[in-house]
Each structure stands twice: as structure tokens, then as C-alpha cells.
């Protein structure tokens, strides 16, 4: 059970990393980051079957922080959209050099 959940979460995490590295839409990038966080949650839950509740407590912290992160992140994406009328990172290039 442990091996399967670890393998599954590693696969999810890798999909998230590949998504962040290849996609260019800010919202999709953010979704990929959330996927990575949830993959980590799965790892914690998997390990807490062996070690007890500590990992599950960590999962609650991660979920709370991820919610706060979504609030701040979406606000920043909206602030940028008001200036550029796009959330595509390809078109966002004021800062260079």
C-alpha cells in the first residue's frame, strides 16, 4: 500500500513539474503547482500509515497554506490581467536583461 501511494504521488509530482516547465498560461502553471502540493499531501498520508498521525497534521497545514496561497496568487494574476489583458507569460516581458 505504501509503495503504491509513494509511486502514485511521485508520478503526480512529476506531472506537475513538467506542467510548470512547459505550459505558459499563469492559471495553468498555478494549477500544476497545486497538483505538486497535493502529490506531497499523498506522500505524507502514505507515510503516516507507518508512523502515526504526524504526517496527517502536516497535510492539514499544507491544505490551509495552499488555500491562502491561492487567494494571494489569484489576486496577483488579476492585478496583472488588469494591466496586460492576458495571463499568458509569453506576452509578459517588461522585465528583461
Amino acid at each position: 500500500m505504501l509503495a503504491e501511494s509513494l509511486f502514485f504521488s511521485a508520478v503526480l509530482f512529476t506531472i506537475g513539474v513538467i506542467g510548470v516547465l512547459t505550459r505558459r498560461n499563469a492559471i495553468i502553471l498555478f494549477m500544476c503547482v497545486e497538483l505538486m502540493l497535493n502529490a506531497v499531501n499523498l506522500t505524507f498520508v502514505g507515510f503516516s500509515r507507518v508512523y502515526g498521525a504526524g504526517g496527517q497534521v502536516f497535510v492539514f497545514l499544507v491544505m490551509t497554506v495552499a488555500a491562502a496561497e491561492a487567494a494571494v496568487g489569484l489576486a496577483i494574476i488579476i492585478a496583472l490581467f488588469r494591466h496586460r489583458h492576458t495571463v499568458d507569460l509569453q506576452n509578459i516581458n517588461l522585465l528583461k536583461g
Partner: protein
Amino acid sequence: MPPFDLSIPAQLTAALGPDLLLMGGASLLLLWAAWREPSQAHQRAVGYASMALTIVVGAYAIWSLYQLRSATGGPIAVDNFRWMADAVILLGTLFTIALSIDDNERENIPVAESHVLVLFASSGMMLLAAAQDLMIVFLGIELMSLSVYSQAGINRRSARGAEGALKYFLLGAFATAFLLYGMALVYGATGTTNLADISSRVTRLGLAHSPLLVIGIGLLLIGFGFKVAAAPFHMWAPDVYDGSPSPITAYMAATVKAAAFAALLRVWMEAFPAAFAAWQPAVAGLAVATMIVGNAIGLAQRNIKRMLAYSSIAHAGFLLVALAAGSTQSGSAMLFYLLAYTLATFGAFAVIIVMARGNDRPVMIDDFAGLWSVRPWLALGMGIMMLSLLGFPVFGGAGFFAKWYVLQAALQSPTPQTTLAVILVLTTVVSAGYYLYVVMVMFMKPRPEGSIAPGATPALTRAVVVFSVIAILLLGIVPDRFVRLARAGIMHAVPTADAAPAATASTAGTATP
């Protein structure tokens, strides 16, 4: 005083006193900040109150330092390292708020909450400095990062600011995921998140080469590498530093880095000393890459904020040398370095704020041409900041001893890091190319025809410059007092083999080089 027993809630509260005071005070100030209509007067009033709160919390932290108490077990540490890191963090906080009050007025950002966000970020940093449990490290990093993400985009009229904030947010969140995965694997390898327990279980169960632990440490290093902007995870830093308001840039360059390094050092020295052989080459490699990349690309910069961004990357490399040395002197060397770097960075950014023309236009190094002829004191102050960042003897003051102590930690560690020390010295020589260029431009180039002199320096900004210059020069004359204090009770729990030679080394280190 008896050590805190952290299993008793009242004692845990007392041990977290300064952190809780800052969090509670910041929450009250947030209510007050949101109470009135946004205006410059209100922004100023909340700013002054935030500075007062920072000073009170700083005094509390320094008082705690002289109590010399320790703690047994539990999720937070009580030691000199924590209180001195807090002092450096709160000094940066005070500077940031002082500069923000003036900068908000100049850039017409009447947002009183900006000061409260700095306070929340700083309370996260204080948690980081205290963290002795991976959960607290995570909470501290996120409280700090989330507040700073929104700080980066606080100027809602600036497209560059919004772009910087988005880049910072996306890459910061990406880094957090790596950090967390590393924590999960370390938890999986050892079955605990407490740093001291991790260390004892790694030793007792012989886990130093367990793949789970080694991969976990590697992922943690990637996560921290992003947070401290170490090469090759530094790509976000120049863009974000360039786009953010200058006081926040200084805060990100100096104070965020100080807190991240405090946590990095504590996690590595308290949780993973037994796995030294596994992580040392990785940290050393990161240090070399960061020193070379930061200093080499810094040479090509013409925008002063981007130049200081690469300088900040290079300084992260120098700090990583102290970590890679892994000796008992690493902590005190790192603290002194962070103090010197904080002073010089905030001083330099205060001058940049005076030079800014508004309208979202970046400040170029050539804007400093002939500054000596129109604003001699400002030019002199900036010159001392540059020399301090370079680590020049005497005129660079604290900056010289900062590098000196890091070199000492590298060379006197149980496994001397001669290669790292040589690369540190060589890259410092390279960095003279851009630091001295600024000095040369200010003092030797003529002022271009028709260029307007920078406006009058606002009182708080001037106070930051004057304080930084005096502190840098004073620390350049008597650096040993701070370092001795830092060495006295550095991380009670560090179980390294060279605890005994540290006492003799501290006297040797104070001799003049």
C-alpha cells in the same frame, strides 16, 4: 535561569514571546490600517506605529538574548542564534518600514497595509529563525513568502510591479512544492519532523545513506536554493527585484535572505550533521555556481537594481560557503555576514530611492554620474555601501570582516574548504568590477549637461543612510563583540565534533588580520 520546558503550554508561550508580540501587534495594526480611508497621513501614522512595534519586539528579543535561557525538546529553539537572527531581521524590518513611508509618499501609494504586511512577513521570518520542527519551517516560510509576494505588487499602477509579483509568486510556489516534497521524504525516512529527533534517528538507525533521506535532503536544498536565489535557481531574482518598489527589493534581498539562511543553517546543522558527507558536495557545488554566476553576470548590468540583484545572488554564494564548511563557526560567521549585508543593502537602496525619478522608470548606474559634484554626502554614503558590499578593508568596514569570518570558517573547519575559499577570493576580485564602477561613475565622471540634481532626501531615508554608514564603519573597527556574542551560545543542539576548538578559535579570530 532554568531552561524552558516546552511541553508546558505556558512555557511554550513564554518562549515564543517576541514572535507572538509581533503577530498580535501586527493584527491590531491591520485593523487600524483598514479602519480609515487610504491617505498619506494615515499611511505615515501606521508606518510610525509599525516602527515603534518593531523596536519594542527588537528590545524584547535582545533582552531574551541576555537571559541565556535554553529549551528542552519541543518544536522551537531558544538560543543565541535565534535571538541574534531575530535582531538582524528586525533591523531590516525597521529599515524597510522607514524607507517605505517615504517611498509610498513619493510614488503616491497611500496603502497603510503595506507596513503591516512587512510586519507579518517578519513574524514569519522570526518563526523561521526559531523553527526546530519541519512544520514550523514550512509555516514560517509560507507566512514570509505570501506577505512578500503581495508586497512585490503593492504598487497597483505599476505593470512592472505586477509582472514581478507574478514571477515571484509562481516560482516561489514551485519552490515551496519542492521544499515540501523534501520534508515529506525526510519524514518518511525518519518518522519524525523534529530536527533533533531526525538527527538522533539518522545516527541511531544508520540512515545516512538511505535513498529516501538523501533525495529528501536534495529536494529541500532545491527549495531553499530558490528561496535564497542560489544559482541555478536564481533566474527569478533580477526580474522580481527590478519590478518591486525599492524598499521591498532591499527587504527581499537582505532580510528574506537572512531568514532563509537562518532556517537553512539550522535544518542542516541540527537535523543532518550525520549525513554531512552526503550533502556537503552538493552545497559546495551550489556555492561555487552561485558565486561565479552572480559575480560574472553582475558585471554586465547597467540598471542598478538588477546589478544589486546579481550582487545579492553572489552574496548568497558567499553565505553558502559558510554552510558548506559545516563548522561551529559557520553560524556566527553567517550572522555577522547577514548583519553587514543588511546594513549595506538598505543603505544602497535608500540612495537609489533618492535617485528615483518616479513614473516606473528604472534607475541606471549612469544616473549616478557626477553625483559627487551635486550631492557629495549622498555620493560618499553610496561609496561606503559599495565598498562594504565588495568587502574592502577599512572603508568597507563590516563588509571586510564579514568575508574574513566566512573565510575563517571555511579554512578552520574540520574538513578545510580551501577550494571554496580560493573561489570566494577570486570572485570577490571580479565583483570589484561592478562595485567600483559605481564609485568611479559617482566621483570621476562629469555630470551630464542639463541633468537635474536628485530631490531633497526625506528625513527617514537620510536616517537609514546615516545609521548604515555609522554602523558599517563601527563594525569595521570593533567586529569582535557581535561575533563573540554569536559564538557564546550558538545552537545548543549542534552535535559536531569540533565543539572544543571553537573557544580558542574565537579569540584567534578577533586578532587583526
